[in-house]
């Protein structure tokens, strides 16, 4: 049985790279990414699991990093927005004006990325069941929907 208390040092795999971090066991993945590793593309919107701005991928599945302990990520692959470079989904968000203020965007894009990896021809209901995890206050969602459809069409 592993026991962590006080300040601990652990290894994490983030965006394909091995990182070493010092943390408190109570630290959430959100806090470690932002405050320790400076990966501030992951956003703090509510810290309550409600808004999705802090969404990252854990072994390819979206999770809300504000309600995930960093220790939970030990031995698993973490992907943050900094881990995606010029991907099809990102380009689609540019072309479809899929954001305005951009604050929810990293979480939205990571969730959409995972969705399209899971299903590159998602039905409207599948898109909804994935994307309703992320709040966006600016766009009214239509541009997000358009961006995902655009990316899906390019990926097929």
């Amino acid at each position: 049985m592993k026991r962590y208390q006080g300040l601990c040092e652990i290894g994490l795999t983030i965006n394909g790279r091995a990182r070493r971090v010092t943390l408190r066991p109570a630290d959430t993945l959100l806090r470690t990414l932002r405050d320790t590793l400076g990966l501030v593309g992951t956003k703090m919107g509510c810290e309550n699991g409600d808004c999705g701005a802090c969404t990252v991928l854990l072994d390819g599945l979206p999770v809300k990093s504000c309600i995930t302990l960093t220790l939970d990520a030990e031995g698993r692959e973490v992907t943050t927005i900094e881990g995606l470079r010029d991907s099809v989904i990102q380009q689609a968000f540019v072309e479809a004006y899929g954001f305005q203020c951009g604050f929810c965007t990293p979480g939205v894009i990571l969730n959409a990325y995972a969705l399209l990896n899971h299903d590159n021809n998602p039905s409207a209901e599948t898109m909804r069941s994935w994307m309703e995890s992320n709040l966006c206050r600016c766009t009214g969602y239509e541009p997000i929907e358009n961006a995902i459809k655009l990316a899906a069409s390019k990926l097929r």
Partner: protein
Amino acid sequence: MKSQIGRSVLRKDAPDKVHGRVRYTDDLRLPGMLYAALLTSTVAHANITQIDIEAALELQGVQGVFTGKDFPLLVGLYLGDKPALARNKVRYYGEPVAAVVADDERTALEAVRLISVHYEELPLIRSPREALQQDAPLIHPDMADYVHIPAILPEPGSNVGHRTRVRKGDAAAAFAQADVTIEGQYEFPPGDHVAMEPRVAIAEIRSDGQVIIRSSTQSPYGVRAIMSRCLKIPTGKITVIAGPVGGGFGGKAGIQLEPLAYLLSRSLGGQPVRLANTREQDMVTSPGAPGLQSRVRLAARSDGAITAAEIEFLFDSGGYADYAVNVARAAGYACTGPYNIPNVSSDSLSVYTNHPFATAYRGFGHIEMSYCIERSIDLLAEKLQMDPVELRARNVIRAGHATPTNDVLDDNTGDLETCLRRAAAAIEWHKGSRRQINEHTVRAKGVSCYWKAPAIPTFTDAAATVSFNEDASVNVVTGAVEIGQGIFTGIAQLAAERLGIDTEQVHVVDEVITDRSPHDWTTAASRTLFMVGRAVLSAIDDAVAQIKRTAAAPLRCPEEDLEVRGGRVYIRDVPAHGLALEQVVLGYTYPNGNAIGGPIIGRGKYIARHLSGIDPKTGEGRPGLEWTLGAEGVEVEVDLRDGRYRVLRSACSMDVGTVINPQLARGQVVGAMAMGIGYTTREAFMFDSRERVLNQRLRDFKILRYGEHPEYIVDFVETPQRDGPYNARGLGEQGIVGMPGALASAFSRAVGVQLLRLPITPEYLWRQTHSAGGRSAG
């Protein structure tokens, strides 16, 4: 070169935003930065009898613990009524009572738990009407001592923070002669903006006394001015830095966390102090959207001509005045909505209650006003048995008509009737406004008209500078803040159009620093593209004149023969004879080495034209720079068994003068309509019996989610605003303004009862359906 106007240029901030590379204020970590955390009030109205901070001070890592007595000055946007931390008394649930500053955030949070506060609860004021009762307790007994700007008219000895009176024509006489009159009473509770980025401010004071504020703000210059005025700091000793903002919607206009962050830093030798809201604090501790209670009476002739309106708006400003006093003023001067009503008597009040305080919210007075007026027009249509679209068309305001403040609209006025017809056509109004789908499901439609003018000071300004790089690309510096609206892209298009170059060649500096960016009033009120746009065009013109001056000598011609376009300066009638701008913008160098001209810097400015204050007795004056007019139509489907509904389609037709960037314009309108759906159906604070907010988490305060959005239909009418940049007028907020009216109309039609309050939830629809007069599913 194709025109840049009317083109969907990709957003300038797109690459960084989709890669998570934008740096918002919350992303900054400064060397030596300390972290603040707040203890907030657990009661809505109470005297603070004791605060015990000893235990908190003893916690290792705590640098200081502060309470109201440490910071005696009052701060306020228009009316100086608010201490940085509550002094002696709390006026709303969530009000900051104490602040801890510590080496790290967790220590600050732990220390907050160690502070104990004793309250002696006071009688509560739960609504504006309660606040206006004779024996109502005074929330601000010292109101007479508060400093305020001249346009705001507080009424000491009452709970009235401001009153705007409009008296136009003779309403009483018109009512006496009316064929038909109606009266409606409307109300809704306060709510919140729910920008995805919670507010944050970082303050530090350099050794020379320069105060540096980094903030998620729409108003860097406003922050500077108000801090200077209220905290007695010379303006020049304050620098406010505003990077990209994660959504504003009015909630980051005015002054927010900055004064407290500054006071905390000042108490700790100027070290950087970061004060960041949790989501829960952002919802209730920082200000939200005002609630309203209202009464509207309309008088009309039997042919549908509205002859008079008698209007009372009681805005729920909560514990402090903030922007709510000006929201009430805006609702007052716009009080009739976009209708030509010759006789008007209106009182619009901002009233203190023991609710979280209210500030600017998208639509600013107009969304609240519009809901009440549009509902009233529907009541009138019902009474007259007239088609609601035709009744509206009969009364739309046009050029030549006078607004409630007796300001006669000029030829720049949009074509509302066309908007109305098009919005109605978009939802196929002519095919019927209510249709039974099956035994228990109905589809119903609703329409509304709206208008909005920016509620701004008469001297609202904007400015811009442009400079050039060696490759002749252009740098544009303005005081505008990117809050998601895409302003830098719009600015780049205007500048590129004027120079006949591609927007790629225009770099818009994306951070406002008040001591090096030119002055700008505030990024709010849907005035930025208009005013900053004008300033940018004027800066480009100034630069072009300088380019011509430099080029005239080597090109050996009069300046007035020169043209600047497409990256060249050339002789208009001999276009081949010219110079590349690269050869001119940093000075021209002759073959022999002699140089002339020097770097070109274009200066541009704009200040609102012909605005005036309004008369305190009659409201007469010109408060509105430009009115954006439009109409909205919606279709909803309601299950009458349980009130569940879907918004099927939402159409907006708006006269915007000129569309600069169709995709950005559509984005603003669609986003505003979505927000309007939430505003109408769910976005409201709920209170317990002691006026404590129950839903300060996003789990409980619902905004629209993916999949709940309707089909959006957006349509622009282009009646030129001749004093706007390329004839454009503002459009950022307007799409929300008509939504509550249109939706309430559709829902009312569905259930067969005129709905008079918000939010319209399924439970409310169910109750109304099964009430007397409702269309019970049977």
